[in-house]
């Protein structure tokens, strides 16, 4: 019993509990505007977690997460605007996630059953993203309507409605808790899945595909499933983002937008969801501050972080920090 409690008392868990408590009490400290900024941070953190799952756990490198996110947001926007009823919007969210999971599964089927792996998955998802962005960019004309909703070209969809739960429209504070709870659920599911059989098979695939196959794992099937789930998570993040900002545009689908969460996951620690969450919130918090100063050096800093972390701390900043701290505490105890 004592050993078990000690095993739970890692620096990773402590940090997580601190973050959880901070997140719960945050609404009493800040005003509504700042609070809604945090809803934005949380939805982008979910996007980053989708990459932790697919890249960190399963070793599949996807460069198209922003495209999946954006497409999910487009689907939600079209459905909710076309329906025009607040009560329907939560179903629009679910439908968007399910459609995107199906699409992710279809794309993954072509890739993984075709024997496409490693760098080529990155390239195909990237090409998918670029093609989708180009497509959405040229939909300005009248003829581009889905369910009577105009896609709007480079301006994108605007006026995307808020979500209602039980006949109650989610305002700033309620929406904050909505995203917060979803984030915690996604985080918990991803962390828990690591110690299930499914998680073990993902690790096996990541470490060595051909050996896992010889041990009887159906590698392409597992890859398709995990890719579909990750696509669904990205779409979920997109829906939350579009509800937060009430718009979605082709710019949100761009390669740079796909790269930021990759940077976050790689820098924080790609195999560790806690590190991802911590780094993501920190990153969006700081970049919100930086954006206020309007720095054109943003991308240069982003690129430099990426290079330095991958060259010198390949396991990621916070992952390494967690294990260092644990070792230090153990030695002292």
């Amino acid at each position, binding site marked *: 019993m004592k050993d078990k409690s000690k095993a739970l008392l890692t620096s990773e868990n402590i940090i997580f509990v601190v973050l959880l408590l901070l997140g719960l009490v945050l609404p009493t400290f800040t005003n509504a505007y700042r609070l809604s900024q945090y809803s934005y941070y949380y939805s982008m953190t979910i996007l980053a977690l989708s990459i932790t799952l697919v890249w960190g756990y399963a*070793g599949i*490198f996807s*460069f198209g997460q922003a495209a999946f996110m954006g497409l999910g947001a487009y689907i939600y926007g079209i459905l909710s605007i076309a329906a025009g009823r607040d009560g329907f919007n939560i179903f629009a969210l679910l439908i968007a996630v399910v459609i995107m999971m199906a699409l992710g599964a279809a*794309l993954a089927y*072509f*890739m993984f*059953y*075709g*024997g*496409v792996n*490693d*760098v*080529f998955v*990155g*390239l*195909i998802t*990237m*090409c*998918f993203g*670029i*093609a989708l962005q*180009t*497509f959405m960019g*040229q939909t300005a004309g009248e003829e581009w309507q889905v369910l009577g909703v105009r896609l709007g070209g480079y301006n994108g969809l605007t006026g995307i409605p808020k979500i209602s739960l039980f006949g109650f429209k989610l305002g700033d504070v309620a929406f904050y808790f909505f995203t917060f709870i979803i984030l915690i659920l996604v985080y918990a599911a991803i962390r828990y899945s690591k110690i299930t059989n499914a998680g073990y098979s993902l690790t096996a695939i990541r470490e060595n595909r051909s050996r896992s196959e010889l041990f009887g794992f159906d590698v392409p099937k597992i890859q398709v499933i995990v890719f579909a789930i990750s696509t669904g998570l990205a779409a979920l993040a997109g829906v939350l983002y579009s509800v937060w900002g009430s718009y979605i545009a082709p710019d949100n689908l761009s*390669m*740079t937008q796909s*790269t930021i969460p*990759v*940077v976050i996951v*790689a820098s924080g620690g790609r195999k560790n969801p806690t590190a991802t969450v911590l780094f993501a919130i920190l990153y969006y918090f700081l970049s919100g501050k930086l954006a206020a100063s309007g720095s*054109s*050096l*943003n*991308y*240069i800093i*982003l*690129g*430099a*972080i*990426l*290079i330095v972390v*991958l*060259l010198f701390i*390949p396991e990621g900043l916070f992952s390494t920090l967690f294990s260092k701290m644990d070792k230090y505490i153990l030695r002292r105890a």
Partner: protein
Amino acid sequence: MILVFRHLYLFLDSFSFLLLSALGLSIIYGMMGIINQAHGEFIMLGAYFTSLLSVALHIPFIISIFLGAILTGFLGLLLDRTIICRLYSRPLDSIVVTWGISLILSQGIRIILGNSVESISTPLGSFTIGNEKFSTYRMVLVAVAVITLMVVYYIFNHTEFGLKARATMQRSDIAKSLGVNTDKMYAATFFIGSFLAGLTGGLYSPTMMVVPTMGTSFNMQAFVTVIVGGSNPILGSFLSSALLGIVNSELSGWAGSFAGQIGLLIMAIIFIRICPLGVSGLVDRLKAVRR
């Protein structure tokens, strides 16, 4: 007759574009297993160097292209020696790191040189067949693409360097134990790849706007060509440029350049599903069957 020529012209145009944009990327991938995400940005640098040399310093256009390509090649060499050589055994990480490099390059150029430079007007004018005008320069580019391919083929198949480079590509450990300096081979390969990227940029600089983001307009086509081409850099990029050139030019002519791009992507995904090793893998299999 004129109709046939128009189709041929569009095909050759898109064939040479695909071949030139993909060749450098494909050589680096085939030899080193590294996907250089900064490839498009190297092309952009080549275009910038060429435009600056020829507009600001009044160096003749052809020499500017060549100098620009050499400068880009040396920059690639520098990046290889400082950053990429640490990632030879981690190809997946190299995608992320080279993407970081591409961010720095395009934003750095934007900060240093502003949003665009004075462009060069397309040289050589045009020729007329029937009553339609065609650009002479585009046809020269086709010739240049074919010559470049032949030179690269010669280098890799008929020189001592090429022999050592191919040995390194097939079994680097055995090549090493036979006294080949594999690190040097990798560095030289990366130089050649970057040189070809710079050359492409220089050649296409008069035909498009020279802006910091122009790299991305090469990237997708180049990657798709490499995916379809497979592991043999020279044969693969030649055959897949030809194949994709037909798809791209016909679709673009029929439904606009956007349809051409989407067609390339769909073609690549389906093709890789049917034959995962690309065109060069298909050729290898056919050879094996014949024996």
